[in-house]
């Protein structure tokens, strides 16, 4: 009896002497045929005999004979390992003797379909992925949002569909790392079905990728997405006819509304089961000369069994003719391929001589010729008498002179509404937390636990949580700008400015994403083709103000800028962008040679954003924010509080109790005056205690570095704690300032406390710590200095450790310099 809970493995995972039962053979075409002929079919038992000295190839025993497979080939065979080997021990039989439970596992495996979503950027792959799988992955109406693969599964029609969402690419050539990555995923992971998602509003360009998939001889289904756009335009498209011509079933979908998704996956199942009448392998006819070259090269390739088992020979021939260097390297890694590469070189020379063009251009032209031809047969444009809506809007939005002011206006509106609309729920939450604080304060008797909960946890976490509405409003607007397609216009508008300063316009996309969170923005730099551009963009992404920094701005602006709050906030963001441009320019001159790549970002049509997508976006952000409150902010608040609360046995500079007693006994003072003196005495005592606490000692240690910026030690400590996450700056201020001043029973309003805060030691003792100048300097410091740990880790991963360390130091040094300049120069005037 075989235990059914055995996991599915790849054959390559088995160790010497281990046995497995084949459940599924991945891949298709020549590889599958050859492997089946060798006996690797469902239900057969395979035994690992031995690994070669370099772990490759591996010798297996199947059906009584010994067969050697490369590790990559063994990777394509899925097996289950029987936990007890009754089959062989009792029956000594290696054939298809299977128990019901084993059959069940094999059937389950066979009913699992691995699907990969590929397509041009912004064709709606992630929207389709989200709808099909019920996931909430980030989408936007511009290309390059998906920077990683995402995997999820769901069941339909008795099948388990494992769906992988790949980054958007215009082709699978070798232009960018993403293109290479998608190609590698398809050729190495060999998904059962590749779904090519096509944007209906730009079919011709999208079909270029389809033509490359046709060359690869893989099983495909086309999702003709955003089909409603095409219908709205009034164009007519006989896509069923196109499907017959290219041998790939096409399903019209509107992923944002879920239309056609079920039909799409039913078609995928049909193609997988080879019962779809349309699915067949069709060749693109590249014309006599190219076809002859392909044919000669293909014959040479077929002589090399290993190569032709790994890649479809016609596809190999086409890629070699395109002189695709990454592919040539891959071919060269196979044994005995020198002749093939020589033939390829001769054919390329002959074609280039004939057409007087580079070979890759010749093939791309032929592909577009094919696409043009099939579309002429199947696609009819509606005659347009007027400019299309998107173009009409763009006349104003991307206008040479109006575009930039409109962009600034939108940003100002967004920030102004973040304040004005956000202030109402902010006050409600603030008041609620104040009442909670009062309630807990009344219930719990005085003591350290009371202080921890009221001053540490509520003061710290409560101080941050009140900014949730502001964050949500900001994300609402960012989501609107992304989904409508305006973000792509913003990049277009900024490109003019950035290009003049030597920065790649496409870099603006990761920078825009940085407004949400810097980590995915760092990952999004993968959309840039040149490594130098990627690193340069990574270096300036931290200057884009992420949403975690927003609470600090909202707090300080609310407290010290009673008017023009939106404008002040806008200025912070704009300074971030301006610094990013300047820093990029300087770094480009210092570190990187000038190398320009054309700006290839397209402007997608304007679309009406869906409420669902916007709400999902906001909901996800709320969850992230609240999770952060319950974990890192809570932990930081408790630790900061403890460091500020202990030690308790402080030696005070004077006897406060004796002074209090003498005030009480002083009959010359009225009760009101006595109360004021006693209250001040209490504050002075608490201030001295805090100064001598552990956190006070740390704070005083860093005072020399921050005093020239006008900061007190509490700001310094808050800034240090912000290294982990920027919201901790607020919670630290909440704990440090809350502890010192008597808490208002109805509010935890930190801004009032900041307004009252005075220096308790040093040369400026008694002076107010904060004024608009210090607040502005602090906001700029928070904007620029050390991005959080997660961002540094992301830079280390995407670039390397040296660039991560460099980012840490340069941002902090720049922050200090800017805050110093603002404070020192500003002090001369204010």
């Amino acid at each position, binding site marked *: 009896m075989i235990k059914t809970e055995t996991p599915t493995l790849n054959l390559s995972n088995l160790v010497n002497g281990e046995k497995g039962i084949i459940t599924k053979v991945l891949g298709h075409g020549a590889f599958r045929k050859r492997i089946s002929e060798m006996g690797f079919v469902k239900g057969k038992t395979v035994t690992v005999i031995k690994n070669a000295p370099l772990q490759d190839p591996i010798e297996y025993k199947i059906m009584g004979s010994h067969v050697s497979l490369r590790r990559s080939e063994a990777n394509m065979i899925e097996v289950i390992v029987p936990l007890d080997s009754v089959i062989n021990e009792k029956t000594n039989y290696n054939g298809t003797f299977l128990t019901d439970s084993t059959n069940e596992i094999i059937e389950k495996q066979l009913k699992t379909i691995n699907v990969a979503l590929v397509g041009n950027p912004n064709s709606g792959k992630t929207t389709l992925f989200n709808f099909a799988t019920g996931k909430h992955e980030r989408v936007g109406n511009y290309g390059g949002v998906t920077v990683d693969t995402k995997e999820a599964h769901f069941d339909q029609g008795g099948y388990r569909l494992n769906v992988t969402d790949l980054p958007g690419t215009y082709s699978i050539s070798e232009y960018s790392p993403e293109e290479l990555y998608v190609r590698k995923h398809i050729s190495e992971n060999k998904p059962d079905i590749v779904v090519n998602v096509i944007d209906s509003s730009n079919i011709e360009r999208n079909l270029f990728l389809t033509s490359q998939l046709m060359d690869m001889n893989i099983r495909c289904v086309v999702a003709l997405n955003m089909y409603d756009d095409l219908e709205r335009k009034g164009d007519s498209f006989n896509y069923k006819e196109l499907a017959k011509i290219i041998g790939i079933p096409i399903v019209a979908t509107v992923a944002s509304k879920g239309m056609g998704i079920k039909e799409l996956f039913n078609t995928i199942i049909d193609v997988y089961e080879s019962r779809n009448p349309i699915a067949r392998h069709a060749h693109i006819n590249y014309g006599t000369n190219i076809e002859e070259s392909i044919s000669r090269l293909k014959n040479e390739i077929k002589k090399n069994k290993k190569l032709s088992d790994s890649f479809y020979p016609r596809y190999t021939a086409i890629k070699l003719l395109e002189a695709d260097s990454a592919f040539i390297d891959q071919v060269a890694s196979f044994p005995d391929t020198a002749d093939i590469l020589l033939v390829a070189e001769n054919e390329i020379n002959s074609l280039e001589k004939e057409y007087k063009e580079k070979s890759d251009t010749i093939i791309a032209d032929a592909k577009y010729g094919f696409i043009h031809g099939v579309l002429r047969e199947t696609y009819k444009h509606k005659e347009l008498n007027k400019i299309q809506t998107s173009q009409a809007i763009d006349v104003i939005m991307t206008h040479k002179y109006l575009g930039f002011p409109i962009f600034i206006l939108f940003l100002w509106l967004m920030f102004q509404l973040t304040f004005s609309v956000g202030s109402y729920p902010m006050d409600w939450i603030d008041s609620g937390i104040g009442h909670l604080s009062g309630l807990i304060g009344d219930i719990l008797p005085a003591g350290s636990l009371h202080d921890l909960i009221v001053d540490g946890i509520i003061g710290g976490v409560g101080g941050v949580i009140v900014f949730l509405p502001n964050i949500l409003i900001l994300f609402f607007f960012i989501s609107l700008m992304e989904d409508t397609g305006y973000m792509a216009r913003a990049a277009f508008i900024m490109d003019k400015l950035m290009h003049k300063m030597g920065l790649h316009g496409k870099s603006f996309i990761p920078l825009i994403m940085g407004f949400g969170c810097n980590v995915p923005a760092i990952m999004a730099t993968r959309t840039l083709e040149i490594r130098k551009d990627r690193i340069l963009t990574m270096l300036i992404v931290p200057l884009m103000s992420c949403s975690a920094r927003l609470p600090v701005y909202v707090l300080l602006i609310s407290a010290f800028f009673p008017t023009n709050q939106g404008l002040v906030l806008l200025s912070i963001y704009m300074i971030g962008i301006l610094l990013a441009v300047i820093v990029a320019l300087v770094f480009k001159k210092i570190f990187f040679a000038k190398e320009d790549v054309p700006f290839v970002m397209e402007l997608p049509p304007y679309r009406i954003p869906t409420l669902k997508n916007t709400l999902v976006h906001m909901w996800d952000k709320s969850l992230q924010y609240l999770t952060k409150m319950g974990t890192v902010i809570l*932990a930081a608040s408790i630790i900061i509080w403890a460091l500020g609360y202990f030690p308790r046995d402080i030696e005070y500079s004077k006897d406060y109790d004796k002074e209090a007693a003498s005030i009480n006994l002083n009959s010359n003072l009225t009760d009101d005056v006595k109360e004021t003196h006693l209250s001040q005495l209490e504050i002075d005592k608490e201030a001295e205690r805090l100064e001598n606490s552990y956190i006070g000692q740390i704070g005083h240690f860093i005072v020399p570095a921050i005093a020239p910026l006008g900061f007190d030690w509490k700001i310094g400590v808050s800034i240090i704690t912000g290294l982990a996450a920027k*919201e901790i700056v607020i919670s630290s201020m909440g704990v440090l300032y809350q502890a010192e001043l008597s808490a208002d029973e109805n509010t935890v309003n930190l801004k009032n406390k900041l307004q009252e805060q005075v220096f308790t030691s040093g040369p400026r003792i008694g002076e107010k710590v904060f004024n608009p100048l210090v607040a502005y300097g602090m906001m700029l410091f928070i904007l620029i200095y050390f991005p959080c740990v997660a961002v540094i*880790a992301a830079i280390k991963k995407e670039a390397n450790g040296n660039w991560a360390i460099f980012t840490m130091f340069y941002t902090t040094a720049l922050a200090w310099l800017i805050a110093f300049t603002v404070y020192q120069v500003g002090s001369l005037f204010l």
Partner: protein
Amino acid sequence: MIQDILVFLIVIATLGYVAYSFAISLKKKKEGDACGGCSGCSLSEKCSSLTVDKINIK
């Protein structure tokens, strides 16, 4: 006194949580995964070596 004991336990538990999180992030780094699963990061859920097939940029 009870309050002091409870505070002591809470602070120790918090320090333990921070140390554990730090150890996990170091372990991930050793495994070549720089993602610390930071709670505020929008990629934290999928940024695990199990679900993310990383793009290897040369």
